[in-house]
């Protein structure tokens, strides 16, 4: 960019030298409407809207045609051409600069978002996950424990039933004995239980 500006300044100096210093005033007086304008468009790059400048020559050449009539007309034209080229380069530079700044901001916002996600959202979610896992494990353990207890109960129930069934069978046998020997039930039971011990009344 520096080189182009140097060339155009040089061209201007030449024009001034040839056409006399007065072109300045002529030019200043003659400013009406800008014939060089820029168009700004938006380009979408990777989701970021970037501005882009385009340079348009609006056609009507300025009324500077009187500038060079006295002398140095060609130099003035050359100078004008040099400056127009300079403007083209400058417009492109401006466009790059704005895209640059916009991208810079976009990068910063994205960085901020990444940081927020990493340091805030993730730990929270992880906490929730571990809490849920813990609860599920605990419920499972409770279930397991309950199951074991119920099994224990059932076992005891079965044992009780077996015992009562045995008692019942013994009583039945005692009844039979009583019927056979014609003694009372009580004596029958005593006989049954006494077969294990020696009765004093019986001598031998």
């Amino acid at each position, binding site marked *: *960019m*520096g080189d182009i*500006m*140097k060339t*155009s*300044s040089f*061209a*201007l*100096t030449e024009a001034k030298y040839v056409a006399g210093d007065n*072109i*300045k005033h002529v*030019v*200043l007086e003659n*400013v*009406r*409407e*800008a*014939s*060089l*304008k*820029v*168009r*700004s*468009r*938006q380009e979408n790059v990777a989701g970021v*809207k970037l*501005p882009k*400048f385009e340079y*348009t*020559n*609006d056609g009507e*050449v*300025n009324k*500077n045609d009187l*500038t060079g009539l006295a002398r140095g007309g060609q130099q*003035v034209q050359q*100078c*004008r051409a040099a*400056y*127009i080229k*300079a*403007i083209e380069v*400058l*417009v492109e*530079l*401006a*466009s*790059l*600069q*704005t895209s*640059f*700044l*916009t991208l*810079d901001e976009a990068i910063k*916002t994205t960085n901020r978002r990444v940081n927020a996600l990493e340091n805030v959202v993730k730990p929270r979610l992880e906490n929730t996950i571990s809490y849920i896992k813990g609860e599920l494990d605990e419920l499972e353990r409770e279930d397991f424990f309950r199951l074991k207890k119920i099994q224990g109960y059932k076992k005891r129930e079965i044992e009780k039933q077996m015992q009562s069934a045995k008692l019942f069978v013994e009583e039945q046998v005692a009844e039979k004995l009583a019927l056979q020997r014609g003694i009372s039930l009580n004596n029958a039971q005593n006989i049954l239980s006494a077969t294990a011990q020696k009765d004093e009344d019986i001598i031998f």
Partner: protein
Amino acid sequence: MANRAQIPTKSSALIAMIADEDTVVGFLLAGVGNVDIRRKTNYLIVDSKTTVKQIEDAFKEFTTREDIAIVLISQYVANMIRFLVDSYNKPVPAILEIPSKDHPYDPAHDSVLSRVKYLFSTESVASGRR
């Protein structure tokens, strides 16, 4: 992405200039000058008699005007209002520092480059321009 600045898509936007006389004359010759009905121009010629306040006012006016897309400012003029230029952070209009005849371009003072360096250090400046 809701707070993205509005970038106008205009079909005709002007180029403003704040520079010394020779540069401005050259650009006017090329045709970027515009005087509207209220006699407002889009350029400001800075010479030894212009006060800093005038330059500041012109800068503020150019950056708030809706129809100006680029502001070209000579680097030594930019140095005079460095704080204003540095605190300006809208994407449009784009502020471009140009060298003048007596002051060659000095990238160390360019507000954009130095700001990028300050904000971001390593990569951007190295990979970016020039």
